[in-house]
């Protein structure tokens, strides 16, 4: 590929990414009332999508062979446990991440 072709390729990716982000807003502009079904989706989807993102983070974890995703499970348990206990977002994420890093660098 030459430079122009590379720029065009990047342009195509930018355009596609923007398409996925802008499309809902173009189909349902703020100037017109949003159909009840779409408003319903807007209310329930955030909960479902975050669930999907959590699963997405674990997509490359292999549970069938060593280390069986143990660093991920332990890290996630630390985050969830601390968050249940202290309800401090930065503490939960910070401690979970440090423990995960120690595990993947030193233990597994």
């Amino acid at each position, binding site marked *: 590929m030459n430079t122009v072709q590379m720029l065009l390729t990047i342009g195509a990716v930018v355009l596609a990414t923007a398409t996925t982000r*802008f499309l809902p807003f173009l189909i349902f502009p703020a100037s017109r009332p949003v159909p009840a079904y779409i408003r319903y989706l807007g209310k329930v989807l955030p909960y479902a999508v*975050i669930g999907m*993102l959590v699963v997405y*983070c674990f*997509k490359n974890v292999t549970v069938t062979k060593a280390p069986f995703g143990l660093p991920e499970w332990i890290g996630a348990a630390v985050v969830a446990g601390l*968050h249940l206990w202290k309800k401090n977002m930065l503490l939960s994420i910070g401690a*979970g991440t440090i423990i995960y*890093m120690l595990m*993947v660098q030193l233990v597994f």
Partner: protein
Amino acid sequence: MADKAKAFRAAFPHTLPILAGFTFLGIAYGVLMQSKGFSWPWTLLMSTTIFAGSMEFVTVGLLAGNFQPIYAYCLALMVNARHLFYGLSMLEKYKGAGWKKFYLIFGMCDESFSINCSVDPPEGVDAGWFRFFVTLLNHCYWIAGSMLGSLAGSFVPFDTTGIDFAMTGLFIVIFMNQWFSCRDHRPALVGLGASVLCLVVFPTDYFILPAMVLILMMLTFFRKKLDPASHMEEPAK
């Protein structure tokens, strides 16, 4: 001006996990670009304009292959299809943000979306500016991280392996915050359950599209049960 400063101060702490995660992922991306022969202007261009982490990694591969812009467009549509759900979720919240709305939508990556959809700005803070700064800070972290990787990737003084777990932690914490803020857990369970099912059934790299379809089908099927508004349209019993 005071309004903006207030919104910035309210937004900043929420973006700290992303500062950690994006620094590492950005460095990894910059180093990868450098190793494929793309110097910092290319990295800067792609971080700024695409601003969708996973797709940027995919694009590095595209640039190494033959010139196929239509294929690149379609592939990016598929990889980023999840953003359609983000838009549907934010139709109401991004209303009335004025000119900032364009940037809020342009910069709606996974992390900015997850904060902006789950965190309501504190009382007295302008919601539009709060969400603008969340988006802008995340955008800056990503650009700065990738520049760091591109220019100084080999000089990082400590082993950063695993620091991207901050992203996983962020999504877990947001999931829990949403769980406790809402009495009806069924939408969250639908998202979790449908995704796990599709991850088991479909190949890892292709599970997200079937998961989105299944989530949409289940939420549509259970609408009568889940949507209080749909009951109001029926005559009172």
